[in-house]
């Protein structure tokens, strides 16, 4: 019951404060009060929890509690070994990964090379239908596991590029050199799985996903109560840094505004994403418990470069110059996002401000002149998906274009992104400009440049193709060091400023709120709450 639970929390806080007072001066010890501390975090229902099949942020948040990745990221978002002891390569193609000893899964099974090889081979095998399957594409032998005809049976069941050296060492051979591979290893797809995860046929055992066994700082306390909660507790034999709270309840919400209300009444401790309707009042409701942190989200407006209306670079630049980014950030987003004037996110090593140059500076006079000179179309259209809360800013953008360029601008809604994407894929005429967004999988410029702008990139819906750009990115990937790679990536980014296939609009932030029950709350650039730092107030 509501009232009873609130009282219980207060008691916990008092006991904790008492213990702390008793041992002031000494090193922080793990007290009984700590283990009793429960923190609740609001998430949505994850679609899946098998690491090779998890792509949504809710699932990622839960997996961050249950698993330890090979690498994590430091303050500058550079990869640092976590479960890996070392990740080395001679030529960026053959990587040797050595694991730290002493880590065990929650069922006692030690974490070995096999734990990784097993999970990766499962994820890479096409017929298993794992959503993170493409992340293994860089590893040698991927094609044999994923025939182009989806109905054909693959000729191999394991990646030829994976080789076990000893219990704690294995080798990964890539099909082409890739200097950012260590950063990629921080992604969910590359987590290990215990032998207990699989049944005799090599599939995930029935019921395993509901009672996941990982190798992380927390273990499942109970089975996954779908649509209600996922409850975890500290794993006592964990050999990495131990968390400061004993239990975490991931409470599942269908509607984030309900989660916000729960946080408002201190029923929910942390809500990592404030719903847009609540942004306006969040500062008043939560005071200094409403915080922001950098995120990798990137919102942009894309051109159908194959459409004669938008094939002229100067038309595209004029449209970009006619948009007052700062004004939209202020009026529509209440300052919760940041105006973007570069083609990659500021969280990345290698980011430079203002790479877009004059084309992204608001200059209505020059914009109108350039637009006239280059015979821009008299009517422009921005298509957006109505299921993502984009209506307001798209209409504001359209109004600015109409006013500053003297054109007619239509903001056209598609019910869902799922309706918009096929139209883009088929290059359906009449779509006009369209909005899209991107969130990285791991902090590397390449994770923006290849999917968004390279010829045939997985999210390149604008038909942009520049062989010189493709070559620079490919060369960058083959460099032996990250620094050398970044120099080439930056050269590639400069080409984007010249060609303007998309207009950078905004970089996102994580907006989060937390209750008075907890402190030391931080949210990383993936949008996950840092579970090792969080404490219950009073400890």
């Amino acid at each position: 019951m509501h009232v009873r639970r609130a009282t219980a929390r207060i008691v916990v806080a008092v006991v904790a404060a008492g213990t702390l007072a008793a041992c002031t001066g000494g090193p922080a010890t793990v007290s009984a009060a700590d283990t009793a501390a429960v923190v609740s975090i609001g998430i949505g229902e994850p679609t899946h929890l098998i690491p090779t099949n998890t792509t949504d942020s809710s699932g990622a948040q839960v997996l961050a509690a249950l698993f330890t990745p090979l690498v994590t990221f430091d303050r500058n978002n550079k990869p640092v070994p976590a479960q890996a002891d070392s990740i080395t390569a001679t030529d960026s193609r053959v990587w040797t990964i050595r694991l730290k000893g002493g880590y065990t899964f929650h069922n006692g099974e030690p974490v070995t090379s096999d734990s990784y090889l097993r999970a990766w081979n499962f994820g890479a095998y096409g017929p298993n239908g794992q959503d993170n399957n493409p992340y293994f594409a860089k590893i040698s032998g991927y094609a044999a596991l994923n025939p182009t005809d989806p109905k054909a049976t693959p000729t191999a069941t394991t990646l030829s590029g994976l080789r076990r050296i000893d219990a704690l060492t294995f080798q990964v051979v890539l099909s082409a050199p890739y200097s950012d591979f260590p950063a990629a290893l921080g992604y969910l797809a590359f987590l290990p799985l215990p032998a207990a995860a699989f049944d005799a046929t090599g599939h995930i055992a029935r019921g395993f996903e509901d009672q996941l066994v990982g190798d992380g700082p927390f273990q499942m306390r109970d089975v996954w109560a779908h649509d209600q909660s996922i409850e975890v507790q500290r794993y006592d034999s964990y050999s990495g840094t131990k968390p400061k709270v004993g239990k975490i309840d991931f409470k599942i919400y269908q509607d984030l505004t309900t989660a916000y209300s729960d946080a408002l009444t201190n029923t929910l401790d942390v809500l990592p994403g404030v719903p847009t309707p609540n942004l306006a009042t969040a500062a008043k409701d939560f005071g200094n418990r409403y915080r922001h942190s950098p995120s990798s989200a990137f919102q942009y407006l894309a051109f159908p470069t194959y459409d004669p209306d938008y094939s002229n670079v100067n038309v595209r630049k004029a449209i970009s110059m006619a948009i007052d980014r700062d004004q939209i950030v202020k009026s529509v987003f209440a300052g919760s996002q940041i105006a973007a004037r570069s083609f990659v996110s500021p969280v990345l090593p290698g980011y430079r401000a203002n790479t877009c140059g004059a084309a992204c500076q608001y200059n209505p006079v020059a914009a109108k002149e350039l637009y006239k000179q280059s015979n821009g179309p008299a009517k422009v259209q921005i298509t957006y998906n109505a299921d993502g809360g984009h209506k307001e800013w798209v209409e504001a953008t359209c109004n600015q274009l109409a006013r500053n360029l003297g054109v007619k601008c239509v903001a056209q809604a598609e019910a869902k992104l799922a309706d918009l994407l096929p139209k883009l894929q088929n290059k359906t005429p009449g779509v006009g400009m369209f909005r899209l967004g991107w969130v990285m999988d791991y902090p590397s410029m390449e994770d923006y440049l290849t999917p968004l702008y390279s010829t045939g990139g997985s999210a390149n819906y604008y038909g942009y193709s520049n062989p010189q750009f493709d070559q620079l990115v490919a060369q960058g990937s083959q460099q032996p060091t990250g620094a050398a790679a970044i120099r080439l990536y930056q050269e590639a980014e400069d080409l984007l400023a010249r060609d303007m296939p998309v207009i950078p609009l905004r970089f996102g932030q994580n907006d989060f709120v937390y209750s008075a029950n907890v402190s030391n709350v931080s949210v990383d650039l993936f949008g996950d709450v840092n579970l090792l730092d969080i404490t219950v107030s009073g400890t």
Partner: protein
Amino acid sequence: MVRFVVRRLLQMVIVFFGTTLVVYAMMFGAQGDPIQALAGEKPVSAAQRAYLTEHFHLDHGFWYRYADYVGGLLRGDLGDTLTLRPISSVLAGAWPYTLKLAGLAMVVVVVVGVGAGVLAGVRRGGLFDAATLALTLVVIGVPVVVLGFLGQYLLGIRLRLFPVANEGDLYSLILPALLLGMLSLATAVRLTRTTVVENLRADYAKTARAKGLSRTRVVGVHVLRNSLIPVVTFLGVELGSLMAGAVVIENIFNIPGVGFTLARAVRTEDGPTVVTIVSLLVIVFLVVNLAVDLLYAVLDPRIRYA
């Protein structure tokens, strides 16, 4: 009586298959790309797309998929959701919530609605009657969405009398049930009041009073029993709108019941789940209506079934 029930059950079978066909066709027609809808903003991997396409026969035509679905139903297999959980286990988790919620709402409607209706009918023209008239008119005029958010804000966030969202216990279901029952409650009050007023004027009521029966007995037994027939009919039909209201209320209060599941399935274009839930709701509706029809005989022995 038995023949009546059997005939009605047979009709139900036809209605059930008709419903599944219509709903399946509508979901089929409205469906864009369910796999992309599932993945949201991210592109779906080719491996997963191929896997789901095969699993759900998405590359086949309407009749093939419908026959496959009905075939599964006849074998007792409800199929899987797009996230590959068995629909039967999803429903097994969801029904208890909705039953509890609708049951609580129904209790509110019956106890408060009928009680207030009788009171207003007996004291026709009094202050209580006027007050309930005004209040019920206001409540009938407000949509359940507004009522839900308003109730959550005032009683949950402002006054903190109730939890603002489901916490898994019965206590946290009271506020949503109250709000859910509110709409039917208003109509129940109006309906009970009218029939009570009517029956109080009827000859048999006068006779009863003339025989020297107490007023409580006349109202409580003679009048009430006869007044209940239209009210029971109404309540049977109303269960349907309670289920519909549950879609809204369950979302506002984060109750993982049938309405919550249905809303998400519609959003993610999860055809099999939508069809199964809607069909089950139709069955519930039909069964309740049958029960209502049978109740008539209990309330009024003059009614016979053939």
